């Protein structure tokens, strides 16, 4: 007897397993006493967070040092998006500049950075089977920071606006390639080796960044810019930054959804994933590259914004469960809303001074994360 392997997908190669008689059908056990399924929580989460994202975006566009009425904001955006249908003549030049050239790109960059970092964090937490991992774990964030520091210290940043994001992105990519090359032997990349190599390289890159900063302190203006960039921020973001970041983040997000199912299996060990049909090594490579692409692009346009990739997916998982098919899109929506709100707070809490975005995300993220950890710790009673 020969199996026609091309037919396997169409028909099972052996007959269905007949169920056991009712007497043996698990009935010696008590009735299910589990919690409500994640499906209900998933729906409730999306019903709350999706409108929140919309409200945050509107808030981010109308609020600021100059308040603009939301109807004016919608008119400006509508006229820009549909110039043939909506008249622009009645729009004041100042409103057009504030809404379309300053705040809309800022909110869009915030959404892309927040959503992207949250998705990258979810990918890394699944990949390392560790809810405390994030994309910095493989040294990508430190690579991006070093790339930016080089551009600052050499003076390239003041000559070209695009030099900084490109350098950050290249730094992220080079760090990733180095970590991967060092951790791979014979086409196999053990996760533990990847993690340790990432931590070591990350420490090295951070020390080089700090050295560059120290050497630049004599030129205080540049050093101040470097320090500001290291704590993340979205001031002076333009449509150029949206176009630098959006294609990579959106492409990587779509690619991450393609691998969502494989990631669910990888979380249960590589043997299990391979046994259930996953090409483990190529999937691991793809997930790492996707995560680096997102992190590099996000850090390139917003600086080092911490805690988003760590906290958002962790909290989202509590509501929607660990399955990446729902975790990835939910993290994207929640991360986008989180960073837009943090940015709004950063520029409205203490006007006219703008607090750095990284400070706000850490100020909200870290205590909330500690609260979740302590609660979990008590639940486990350990």
């Amino acid at each position, binding site marked *: 007897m020969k199996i026609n392997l091309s037919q396997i997908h169409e028909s099972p*190669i052996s007959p269905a397993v007949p169920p056991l008689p009712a007497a043996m059908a698990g009935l010696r056990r008590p*009735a299910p006493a589990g*919690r409500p*399924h994640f499906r209900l929580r998933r729906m409730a989460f999306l019903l709350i967070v999706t409108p929140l994202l919309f409200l945050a975006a509107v808030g981010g566009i109308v609020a600021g040092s100059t308040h603009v009425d939301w109807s004016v904001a919608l008119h400006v955006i509508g006229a820009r998006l549909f110039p043939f249908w909506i008249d622009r003549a009645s729009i004041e030049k100042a409103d057009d500049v504030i809404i379309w050239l300053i705040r809309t790109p800022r909110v869009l960059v915030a959404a892309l950075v927040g959503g992207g970092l949250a998705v990258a964090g979810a990918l890394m937490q699944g990949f390392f*089977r560790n809810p405390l991992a994030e994309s910095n774990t493989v040294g990508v964030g430190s690579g991006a920071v070093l790339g930016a520091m080089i551009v600052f210290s050499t003076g390239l940043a003041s000559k070209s606006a695009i030099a900084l994001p490109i350098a950050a992105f290249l730094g992220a990519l080079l760090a990733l390639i180095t970590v991967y090359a060092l951790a791979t032997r014979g086409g196999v990349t053990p996760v533990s080796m990847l993690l340790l190599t990432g931590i070591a390289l990350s420490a090295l890159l951070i020390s080089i960044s700090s050295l560059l900063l120290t050497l630049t302190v004599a030129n205080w203006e540049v050093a101040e810019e470097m320090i500001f960039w290291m704590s993340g921020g979205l001031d002076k973001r333009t449509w150029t930054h949206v176009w630098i970041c959006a294609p990579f983040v959106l492409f990587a997000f779509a690619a991450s959804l393609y691998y969502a199912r494989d990631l669910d299996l990888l979380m249960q060990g590589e*043997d299990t994933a*391979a046994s259930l*049909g996953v090409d483990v090594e190529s999937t691991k490579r793809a997930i790492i590259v996707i995560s680096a692409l997102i992190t590099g692009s996000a850090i390139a346009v917003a600086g080092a914004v911490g805690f988003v990739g760590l906290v958002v997916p962790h909290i989202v998982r509590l509501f929607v*469960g660990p*399955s990446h098919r729902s975790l990835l899109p939910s993290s994207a929506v929640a991360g986008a809303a989180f960073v837009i709100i943090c940015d709004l707070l950063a520029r409205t809490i203490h006007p006219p001074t703008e607090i750095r975005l990284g400070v706000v995300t850490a100020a909200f993220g870290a205590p909330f994360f500690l609260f979740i950890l302590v609660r979990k710790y008590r639940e486990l009673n350990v």
Partner: protein
Amino acid sequence: MRSVLSAEGLGLRRTNRWILQNFTIGLGPGTVLAIVGPNGSGKSSLLRCMAGLWPLTEGRIVLEGRDLREISRPQVACAVTYVPQEAKLEFEFTVREIVSMGRYSHRGRFAHETSDDRTAVQDALIRADVAYLAERPVTHLSGGERQRVLIARSLATRSRILLLDEPTASLDVEHGLDILELCRSLADEGRTVAIATHDLNGAYRFADRVALLDSGRLMGVGAPSDILTSGNIERAFHVRSETGSSGDGSPFLIFHRLKPEVQ
């Protein structure tokens, strides 16, 4: 007997040590093969190689006449299922979600669960006696319950060949017996089952054939009564054994130290 899955001239070298050394072994249709041997003899490695999870240093694995390397992973997954000894279940998937993952290789990435998938999952939950746990998170289960969930997932694949790595190691006596009886009934339905196990009594009673490994070498393969002889057991495990018979005629083994224990 023709084999549905076989290892031919198998050699496996890892970390500068030969784990498996140049032997050939096959799994016949509708049979249970028990792979026994002392710790470190290569039982789990043999199962991993036969599932195509580890690249071989020498030889090849043949599935229904085709070299396993020529077949894509999803196609192999539909035909051969490997159940690891230890479950890495650190995230809060429900038992039903874990068992449903056994159906992934049967459908496209973005395809929804079909009624056939749901039937396969429900049958698997029932046969592995975890239906009552279906909506519980796996992180809240005991080691034995987790092991049964993994077995349920392997049943949900409906694959023709099941490779189980010490499936009864963390189970209580009742559930250990359940799993061995389940393996027997799956073989009687025409499936092929291979179990790596330390339970020589279970192997004697439920397996059609026993393969005895020692230091990566195949010492012998054949009927339990031919392989689990006192001579073979003494050579491989360094213990003396006696074979008895229970009231219903089932054989059992009792083990003794070769030398009296040093006080």
